[in-house]
């Protein structure tokens, strides 16, 4: 099912959470709403689900105006950051809830719940209560529950934000696989650009209640439409009139006519790469990323003076 939001605005008191936002999500896609906290991404998702009413604008589901439709009639599955598990029900009853509400026959409910629990690998824990589950297990239960009613759209509000890094990575790739199998239109909110870039087909970058850019992860990184996107999606440092990515900076031990002098302030060994923070002679900071081999060859150390040259810079004409 396709989703389109047209000129959606929402204020909370004096604060404009969404400022005339329009976005199209094609049916069957996996879309990320990416932005810093307070950018309005969760509000937009909640408006699509019907959990929040917009002050202005409309939401269309499959081309039909759904702005005034109650959440229970929208056919959406919603997954909350803090799971929203029904604490007084077992895992099985949690997952069965939407089916019981729809008064499906018992045998069908049992069969479907079994299949869903297998899908999220919670078969053995069906009779536990949410309090007896780990965070990752609770969120898998919430996913199974959201999928039980066969929603036309799956909406996830920072679904993995409260989980530790390893579980998050697992669930991330699980969600991508699920989408590849079912092709349910999926929209998830995240402030983690890695998460957005890794699993989404399309990323909607939001900032201060507005949409900054809608693009594939690759285009977003390579052709950011403005300075906000450049610096929010992936790391970037200012260099002269333009911006440079940490891996687009060359380091030399001797100066030439195109290099700038810089002091290595900090070095960090992160897995296969070495990251450095440099301060240029004019006081500007530059982030730098090298392979281990290169860092060793140059014998870089904190406090050392080096000479840097960008290999590729991006210049925005209407710089902020």
């Amino acid at each position, binding site marked *: 099912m396709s989703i389109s939001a047209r000129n959606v605005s929402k204020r909370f008191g004096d604060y404009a959470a969404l400022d005339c936002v329009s976005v199209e999500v094609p049916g069957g896609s996996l879309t990320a709403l990416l932005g810093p906290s307070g950018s309005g991404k969760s509000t937009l998702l909640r408006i699509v689900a019907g959990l929040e009413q917009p002050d202005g604008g409309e939401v269309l589901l499959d081309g039909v105006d759904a702005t005034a439709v109650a959440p229970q009639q929208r056919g959406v599955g919603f997954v909350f950051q803090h799971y929203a598990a029904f604490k007084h029900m077992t895992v099985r009853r949690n997952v069965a809830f939407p089916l019981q509400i*729809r008064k499906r026959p018992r045998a069908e409910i049992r069969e479907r719940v079994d299949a869903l629990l297998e899908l999220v690998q919670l078969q053995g824990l069906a009779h536990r209560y949410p309090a007896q589950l780990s965070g990752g297990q609770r969120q898998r239960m919430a996913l199974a529950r959201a999928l039980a009613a066969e929603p036309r759209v799956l909406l996830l509000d920072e679904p993995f934000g409260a989980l530790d890094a390893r579980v998050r990575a697992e669930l991330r790739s699980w969600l991508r696989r699920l989408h590849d199998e079912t092709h349910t239109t999926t929209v998830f909110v995240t402030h983690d650009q890695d998460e957005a870039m890794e699993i989404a087909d399309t990323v909607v970058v939001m900032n201060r209640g507005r949409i900054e850019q809608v693009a594939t992860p690759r285009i977003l990184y390579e052709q950011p439409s403005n300075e906000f996107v450049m610096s929010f999606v992936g790391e970037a440092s200012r260099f002269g009139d333009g911006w440079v990515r940490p891996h687009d900076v060359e380091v030399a031990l001797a100066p030439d006519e195109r290099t700038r002098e810089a002091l290595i302030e900090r070095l960090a060994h992160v897995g296969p790469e070495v990251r450095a923070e440099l301060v240029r002679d004019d006081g500007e900071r530059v982030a730098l990323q090298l392979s281990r081999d290169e860092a060793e060859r140059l014998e870089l150390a904190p406090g050392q003076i080096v000479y840097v040259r960008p290999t590729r810079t991006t210049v925005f004409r209407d710089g902020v």
Partner: protein
Amino acid sequence: MPRRLALRTAAVGYLLVVLLGPLAMLLWRLEEEGIGRAWSAVTEPDTVHAFAVTLEIAAIAVPLNAVFGVVCALLIVRRRFRGQGVLNAFVDLPLALSPVVVGLSLFLLYGRTGWFGPWLTAHGVQMLFALPAMVLATVFVSLPFVAREVVPTLRELGDEQEQAARTLGASGWQTFVRITLPSIRWAVIYGVVVTTARCLGEYGAVAVVSGSISGRTETATLRVQSYYENLDQAGAYGVSLVLAAIAVVVLVLMTLLKPRQAAA
């Protein structure tokens, strides 16, 4: 260390003097006056009737206030509307107002010269000196307890589970019955127990509006008063002791319920 001990002694001593002392006295005096007389007072038809009236009033007032309390708590916690602060404050009014004042205002409202009195009399409805006014008075004084128990529980619960239920296809009523109510059930039960205790013990407001007619509009607490006024102390002690026994049962119930509520 001695300071902590002194504090503890003071707290326990206070409880003994203020709460347990009078109760012990009741038992002791009963022994002195003769248990036989007390027992015959308790089993007298008018006393039995008085207990029946008390139970009847509680049976009407408690369910009414349970429903009202839950609805009120939902309005206070889950909705945003004009006059919410006023509602929140007014729920507590019966705690601040003396029951006698409540009784008197009901008397003025439904009396022969009151706002509703003449109209009701014309339509053949007997409010004062009858069960309706006694129920009304009891409902008034026992109104806050369910709401006061449920409000903090609802706040702590948050509304995410309710939102989830809505997105999963549940209507507002289904969400309430299947999600909200089970989540607040211990708070509701606890509130109902406290409300029941308050209803059984109510004296002041009911005293003003009932007329205390033996065998008709006399509740158990009014019965104690009438025995006492007639210098039948053994009778007064006997009925009091039954009320005190009920209080102990309620106390035990509350102690049993409190940990479950904390866990829920």
